C-alpha cells in the first residue's frame, strides 16, 4: 500500500513538470498552429541555463529560475519573429504551411542540440540544487520535485488569470476564435502570435530549469521529453490546455506505475501502450474535440 502511494505521489510530482512543457507545446499549437518539434530542445536550453547560471556563475537557484524564464521567452520571441512569422507570407494551403513549419522547427531542433554540443561538450552534467528531502509518513519526497510541483501550480494559476481576466488574454481568445475578425477589431494578431510562441518556449525553458535538479543534463536530454510532450498533447487534445494538463499527470502516473511494478527499463512501454489504446478508442485524444483550440 505504501509503495502504491509512493508511486502515485512520485507520478503526480513529475506529472506537474510533464504538464508544464506539454502545455507550452499545446499553447503554441492552439494559437499559432505551429507544431514545435524544437520544444524538447528548449527544455535542454533551460537545463543548460541553470548549469550556466547556478553551477558556473553561482547565482542563487531561485534567482536563476526567473532569468531562465525571461531568457527563454526572449529566445522564443526572436525565433518567432525572425523565422516562423515569415512562413505566413507565402501562398500555401494551411496544411502545407504546417508541414514547412514542422521542418523549420526540426531544423531549429537540430541546430540547438548541436550548438549546445559544440559549446558544452557531450559530457553529462548534474546540478546540485535542492538536494534535501522530506519524509512524510514514511514516504520520501525530494525537495526538488516538491518545489517543481509548487512552481508549476503557480505558473498555471498565473496563466489562467492572464487569459481569463486581462485585456490581452481576451485578445488571445479572440485571435484563436477568428484571426481575421480579431484583426479587423484592432487586435495585433502578429503580436499575439509572437507572445504565444514566446510563452510556450518560456514554459519549456522553465520546465528544463526545474528538471535539471533531478535529471542528468546532456545535449540530447530534451528528445525524450519531446516524445512525452507529443503523447501528452495528443491525449489531451491538441490546443486544449486543461486537457493537456490532466493528461500530463495521467502520463506521469502511468510511467511511474510501470517503472515500479513492471520494470524500470520498460517505463516507456506503459506510456506507449496507453497512447495506442487511447488512439484506438478516441483518435482525437481523451479531451479532444476537433476544433480544440477555442477551449483556452
Amino acid at each position, binding site marked *: 500500500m505504501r509503495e502504491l502511494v509512493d508511486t502515485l505521489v512520485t507520478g503526480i510530482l513529475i506529472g506537474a513538470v510533464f504538464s508544464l512543457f506539454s502545455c507550452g507545446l499545446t499553447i503554441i499549437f492552439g494559437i499559432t498552429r505551429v507544431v514545435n518539434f524544437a520544444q524538447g530542445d528548449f527544455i535542454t536550453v533551460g537545463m543548460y541555463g541553470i548549469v550556466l547560471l547556478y553551477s558556473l556563475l553561482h547565482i542563487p537557484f531561485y534567482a536563476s529560475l526567473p532569468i531562465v524564464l525571461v531568457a527563454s521567452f526572449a529566445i522564443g520571441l526572436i525565433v518567432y519573429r525572425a523565422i516562423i512569422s515569415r512562413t505566413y507570407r507565402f*501562398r*500555401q494551403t494551411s496544411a502545407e504551411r504546417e508541414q514547412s513549419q514542422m521542418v523549420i522547427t526540426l531544423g531549429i531542433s*537540430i*541546430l540547438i542540440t*548541436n550548438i549546445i554540443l559544440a559549446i558544452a561538450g557531450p559530457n553529462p552534467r548534474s546540478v546540485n540544487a535542492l538536494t534535501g528531502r522530506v519524509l512524510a509518513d514514511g514516504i520520501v519526497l525530494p525537495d526538488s520535485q516538491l518545489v517543481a510541483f509548487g512552481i508549476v501550480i503557480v505558473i498555471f494559476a498565473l496563466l489562467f488569470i492572464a487569459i481569463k481576466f486581462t485585456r490581452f488574454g481576451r485578445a488571445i481568445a479572440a485571435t484563436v476564435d477568428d*484571426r481575421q475578425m480579431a484583426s479587423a477589431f484592432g487586435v495585433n494578431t502578429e503580436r499575439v502570435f509572437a507572445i504565444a510562441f514566446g510563452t510556450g518556449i518560456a514554459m519549456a525553458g522553465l520546465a528544463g530549469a526545474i528538471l535539471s535538479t533531478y535529471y542528468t543534463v546532456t545535449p540530447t536530454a530534451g528528445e525524450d521529453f519531446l516524445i512525452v510532450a507529443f503523447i501528452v498533447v495528443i491525449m489531451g487534445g491538441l490546443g486544449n490546455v486543461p486537457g493537456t494538463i490532466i493528461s500530463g499527470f495521467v502520463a506521469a502516473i502511468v510511467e511511474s506505475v510501470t517503472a515500479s511494478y513492471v520494470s524500470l527499463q520498460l517505463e516507456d*512501454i506503459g506510456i506507449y501502450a496507453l497512447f495506442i489504446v487511447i488512439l484506438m478508442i478516441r483518435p482525437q485524444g481523451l479531451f479532444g474535440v476537433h476544433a480544440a483550440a477555442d477551449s483556452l
Partner: protein
Amino acid sequence: MTTLLANLTSHKQSFTKSVAIVGLVGLAASLPWWLLPSGFWVSAVTTSYIFGIAAVAWVLIGGIAGQATFGNSVFFGIGAYSAAIADQHLHIGPYGGLGIAIGIGIIASLLIGTISFRTVGVYFALITFTTSLVFELFANYFASLTSGAIGISETSAPAGLSNFNFTSADTWYLVTIAIFALVTIAALAISKSWTGTVWRALRDAEDAATACGLYVRWLKNGALLWSAVFTALAGWLYFQFLGFIDPSSAFGLTVATLIPVMALFGGSRRIAGGVVGAIVLIPLEQFAGSTQAASLPSGLGLIIFATIVIIILWIDPRGLVNLVLRGVGYVTVHARQILQGTTRTEEPTKEENRMTVPGSKNETIYKANTRAKFPVENDRAKIIETVTGETDELR
C-alpha cells in the same frame, strides 16, 4: 502498369522530358569517374540515392496525397530488418528478404493506415511519428529476433548479383542509381496517372472528393501502401549496402524526421522535390557523422545541415525546387524584357489569363509576368494583405 506508362508518355512534352531525364541520370551515373573524389563521397552519394527512394515515396503519400506522415521510417525499418533477419535467421538470401520486406511493409501499411487515417493533419503527423518510436521500442525489446540495441551485421557472402553483394563502390553506385531512377520513374507514372490525380483531389478538397463518390479512406490507404512498398525497398537496399542495422537507425527519431525533411526541403508537391532534397541533404548529413568531420569541432556538420534547411525554407517554405523554378521564371521574364527593350503594356493574353494551377510550373512564370506588367493590380493584393493581415488561402 502499362496504362501508367502510357499516361507518362502521352504527355505533350514527354519526348524532351524523357531525353532530359535520361541525360540527367546518365550524367549522375558518371559522377564517380570525374567529380566525386574519395571513396567516402561516392558512398555518401550512394546513400543519398537510397534515401532518395524513401523521399520520393514520401512525396507520394505526403505531397501528392496530402497525408503528411512522420512515420514512414516504420517501413524503412521493416525493410532493413526483413533483409537482416532473412540473412541472419532464415537464410533465404537477399531476394527472399526483399519479398518479406515488401510483404510485411504492405501489411503494416494497411494496419497503420486503418488506425491512423481516422485522424487528419497534425494529429496524423504526430500519431505516425509516435508509431515509429513504438517500433523502435519493439525492435529493442524483441532482442532474440533483432539482437536488440546491438543491431544486426550482415553475414559475409561471396560477391555477385545472386547475393546482391558487390565488392567495388562504383558497382554499388551504379546499382543504386539504377534502382533509384526506376523508382522515380514509377513514382512519376503514378503521379501522372488517374490515381495521382485522385490523390491530389483528396489533398486539395477532401470533402469534395468524398462528395464525388471517391472512397477516400481506400485511396489514402492505397497511397500509404505505394509509399510503404518503395520505402521498404529503400530500407532493404540500405541494409544490403551498409551491412548493418540497429533500432535507432531503422525506426529512430532521426530517420523518422529525416524522410519528411528531405521531401519538404526539396518541395513536396513534386516528385523532383524528393529527389533534390535527398541529393542535397544526405551527403551533408553523412559528412556530419563521418570521420571526415572528426577534425572539425563536434556538432559543426549538423549545425551547417540545419542552417541550410532553415535558410532555404526561410527564403521559400515551398521548397528548393520551387525556389529554383521561381528564379528561372524571374530571369526568363526579365531577360526577355531587356532583350525587347520594353515592358509590355498590352492586355494579358488568353493563355496568361487562364487560371494557373498553384504550385505548377507556369504559376511562377505567370506571377513574374504579371508583377512586371500590372504593378497596380499587385499592390491591391498587397494592400488587402496588409489590412487583413491574411494572405489569401488556396482553399
